[in-house]
């Protein structure tokens, strides 16, 4: 008699594999064009034109950049720890990509008589998973800086690690306030709740602001890019890297930006919900597949707006000094997020008791 230990539907495996391939490809493509957008936006803000030579409007620029990185010489420093040196960028890239697994990119489509949820894994601890993976991202920076056997890289890695740890605290506490409202850790449930009511940014404006600032810090973006401060540490943790290993580090930053934009859109701005449209009625009228595509586009639009915001901030605000960074994190954001959590908890309890004390 056969004992089926793992009763996994083969079609499900194929479906998920295709979904993973699509999402990984899309995030890499988006990251590619983020580099282009970054340069263009930087140029526009500084009254320049930006890359406009490779192809019409310079849209082939990222391809040219990627090709250039592949063609460069791979240099591994003599006295570096070879294994860790190669592990560093790999880990940075891996953690950047892994976060995309729990984000609901759209509702579901109906294909070949199957209902396909456009989310790789709807785990009921989605947010915790994201937190776990994002905290692992610091190892990419740490290991890279450590393995380079270079003082500046090591300094930068320590800076990066302590910065990410400090800001993760405030981020976590600001999220607790949100979770008190949602009563769920599953990202899909959170999106569905927002489809019916207001977006959570309306309930948690301060929490959103803290989350946004911490997301900047987690992505090592200006004004928090102290770990790659080129004027002080001449490039920071990826100073010794060349060729595609450097490319991986730079790329991981852009993938991170894409994913954290998606997380913010999901948690605070309704995820794949189409704003000002009753999604369920729309789906009943135009069909589920049409709805799913539009919802995906809606999420994508929100993500693009967030990415633009990231870049806009980068080319506006100068870098923090290290003590200012720490003061903002520990004396500014953590007390603020604690206060936000307490007030939210108070109001949630008050609502449970029917708006009166006793």
């Amino acid at each position: 008699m056969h004992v089926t230990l793992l009763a996994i539907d083969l079609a499900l495996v194929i479906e998920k594999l295709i979904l993973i391939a699509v999402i990984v490809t899309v995030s890499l493509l988006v990251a590619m064009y983020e580099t282009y957008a970054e340069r263009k936006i930087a140029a526009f803000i500084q009254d320049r034109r930006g890359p406009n030579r490779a192809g019409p409007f310079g849209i082939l620029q990222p391809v040219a950049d990627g090709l250039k990185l592949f063609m460069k010489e791979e240099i591994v420093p003599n006295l570096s720890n070879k294994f860790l040196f190669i592990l560093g960028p790999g880990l940075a890239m891996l953690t950047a990509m892994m976060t995309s697994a729990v984000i609901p990119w759209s509702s579901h489509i109906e294909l070949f008589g199957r209902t396909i949820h456009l989310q790789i894994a709807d785990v009921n601890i989605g947010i915790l998973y994201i937190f776990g993976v994002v905290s692992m991202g610091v190892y990419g920076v740490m290991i890279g800086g450590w393995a380079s056997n270079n003082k500046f890289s090591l300094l930068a890695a320590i800076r990066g690690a302590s910065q990410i740890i400090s800001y993760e605290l405030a981020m976590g506490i600001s999220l607790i306030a949100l979770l008190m409202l949602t009563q769920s850790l599953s990202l899909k449930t959170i999106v569905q709740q927002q489809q019916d009511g207001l977006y959570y940014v309306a309930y948690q404006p301060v929490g959103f602001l803290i989350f946004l600032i911490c997301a900047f810090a987690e992505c090592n973006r200006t004004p928090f890019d102290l770990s790659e401060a080129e004027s002080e540490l001449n490039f920071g943790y990826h100073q010794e890297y060349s060729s595609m290993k450097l490319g991986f580090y730079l790329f991981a930053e852009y993938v991170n930006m894409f994913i954290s934009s998606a997380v913010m859109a999901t948690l605070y701005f309704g995820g794949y919900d189409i704003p000002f449209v009753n999604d369920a009625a729309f789906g009943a009228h135009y069909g589920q597949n049409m709805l799913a595509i539009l919802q995906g586009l809606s999420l994508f639009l929100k993500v693009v707006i967030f990415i633009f915001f990231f870049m806009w901030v980068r080319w506006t605000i100068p870098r923090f000094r290290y003590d200012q960074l720490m003061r903002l994190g520990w004396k500014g954001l953590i007390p603020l997020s604690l206060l936000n959590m307490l007030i939210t908890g108070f109001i949630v309890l008050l609502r449970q008791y029917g708006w009166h004390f006793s």
Partner: protein
Amino acid sequence: MQALTSRSKTVERKPMTIWERLYIPAIAKGMSITFGHIFKKKPTINYPEQTRPFSPVFRGLQVLNRDEEGRERCTACGLCAVACPAEAITMEAAERLPGEENLYREEKYAAKYEINMLRCIFCGLCEEACPKDAIYLSETFTAANYSRQSFIYGKKELLIPHPKLQPEAYEKAKGQRVKR
């Protein structure tokens, strides 16, 4: 104490107010400024496609001129080489043979005429020295190459195209520059 200039300003060192210390209003102000810059007109000139108008006294790379019938004007007198403060010009003279009257205007011509463009300072003294209007500075100025040797321009590079055989190239090389 009396200020040394009338333009000196006293710096305020008052502690920041709560509103200022919030930092967010200042960020919002800065971001609105940078956002406004996105829509500003760009001052860039897309160089190879667009060029700025030259001043009438612009001095670019030298050109060895021909007359209306396409004969070389240079007689290899050497005055340009004497006038050149950077000592960039060298030449060798040769006598015109019978049957070459359609090539060279006078009985003597420059068999070899070289300007080292890395030495040239584009002062235009060669043009002023020339009694035959044979050399003048054009509106071309971008010389790019891979080796130093290739910056020693010979007659092949310097000679203007033939005005009858290649009229368009001749006009282009001649440019809009007004001779002084």
